[in-house]
């Protein structure tokens, strides 16, 4: 017997929370498209704020995407082999290693940023390049990939397949690239999605690491909020939504597809 419970109290709270969450998104989107925010729609619609954002801040969008992609690739290259080693070693030592890797997530980005500047701030070429930001992003997002992929490598059927291939004479390279990595592809995709999302929206750490010549999308956003009209800030926020959200949905869809394909 299932009785549908009507919960008017919960429904009311849900409605209030939904209004609270949705109003700012609607305000920001409409402010990006009107001539004057304080006069509202009466001042007429325009695309000129969006055009201004593309001219002034267009580069930040490109660089943010480039850093996020590089972050995903870099973390896959160093993280997937490490995940395999961690999955095959149930020792305390390996557990500790995994715990230590997650420390940058448990500590505020501000602290990691300060530490990086303290250690490498004097290396001018490194400090003033985008690779300084990339390194910070990789450190911060690495545990998300490693944890997800380690869990996938631990599946018992994979261990058995690995053993079978070994007895048939396959060497490590053949087994790793031919059997193991394809088998955990959905986990790699899911981890990469997390890495990408975190990198593209990262601010706390990036604000410490950026220079006037190396700016990402969130850094540019903070700059526009502090120094431009509300309409320009709103238009820039809209650009973030237009660029980032469809990319995230597309990645999510690909991850789902991979999971479905490999589930059979």
């Amino acid at each position, binding site marked *: 017997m299932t009785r549908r419970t009507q919960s008017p109290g919960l429904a009311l709270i849900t409605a209030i929370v939904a209004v609270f969450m949705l109003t700012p998104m609607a305000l920001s989107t409409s402010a990006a498209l009107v001539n004057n925010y304080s006069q509202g729609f009466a001042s007429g619609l325009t695309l000129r704020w969006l055009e201004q954002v593309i001219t002034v801040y267009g580069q930040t969008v490109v660089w943010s995407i480039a850093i996020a992609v590089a972050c995903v690739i870099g973390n896959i290259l160093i*993280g997937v082999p*490490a995940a395999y080693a961690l999955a095959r070693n149930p020792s305390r030592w390996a557990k500790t290693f995994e715990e230590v*890797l997650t420390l940058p*997530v448990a500590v505020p980005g501000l602290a990691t940023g300060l530490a990086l500047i303290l250690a490498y701030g004097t290396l001018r070429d490194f400090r003033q390049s985008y690779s300084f930001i990339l390194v910070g992003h990789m450190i911060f997002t690495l545990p998300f990939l490693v944890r997800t992929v380690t869990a996938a490598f631990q599946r018992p059927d994979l261990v058995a397949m690995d053993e079978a291939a070994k007895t048939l004479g396959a060497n490590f390279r053949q087994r790793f690239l031919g059997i193991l990595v394809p088998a955990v592809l959905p986990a790699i995709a899911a981890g990469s999605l*997390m890495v990408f999302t975190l990198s593209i929206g990262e*601010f706390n750490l990036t604000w410490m690491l950026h220079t006037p010549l190396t700016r990402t999308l969130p850094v540019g956003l*903070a700059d526009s909020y502090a120094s431009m009209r509300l309409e320009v800030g709103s238009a820039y926020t809209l650009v*973030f939504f237009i660029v980032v*959200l469809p990319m995230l949905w597309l990645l999510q869809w690909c991850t789902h597809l991979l999971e479905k394909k490999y589930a059979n």
Partner: protein
Amino acid sequence: MKSTHRLLLLPVAIFFMAFWLLPVSRLLILPAEQDWRLYFVFLTEARYAWSLINTLGLSISVTLVTLILGAAVGLYLGRQQFPGRQLLLSILTLPLSFPGVIIGFFMILLAGRQGLVTDITQALGLGRFSFAYGLAGLFLAYLYFSLPRAIAAYAAAAQSMDKSVEEAARSLGARRWHIIRDVWMVQLEPTTSACAAIVFATSMGAFGTAFTLSSQFEVLPITIYSEFTNFANFTLAASLSITLGLFTWFALFLTRRQEIVTGVASQ
């Protein structure tokens, strides 16, 4: 450990050592190079003590309100069936991918000098009431970036809740409050503790939101940042970062689970 495995761990070990362990170790010993008492400025200097108390008070109250509202919304969306439910759930969890600066800006649009609430209060003859730049604005902004996390977690937990226990309690004549306390809260306990740790830690370390609002209510990340940029006081910034890091690390340590790493997003 086999040598192949050690070789596979090597790149991560070197990378992590070079760009996190070594820099952070230097940060940790920096105050000691000057005077070990600098580690305790958060206790000895009123300004920093207040900044820490502000941050703790704000984070704890945001966590409590987030858990109550997040559980209510999550339970409702996880258990009720109505058209558009899935869409509403995905819109409500959308802000998970927003940087904190956007949420600070949202508060300015809502209740800043030209904000919606400000216009409404003026139209009602109450004067131009803008609360974005004070404690209220900061609280609502923190609530805004915390709620999606809690809603997503509770909705997922509510969907997998065992309905038969609740049915049994109901047919035995349990009151609504008893069902909430003895059935729902018990079954949702793991979600609650994981969520509490993540929301608290994220609120403590949140920088972008307070930075955008340039709030009159000073929180520790802002204090650290201004010590570093305005006063070039690296040692003090390091000391306060260590304090802040210990608080967030300890909160997460108390509920060390897989959810922590999958639940924390950037703010």
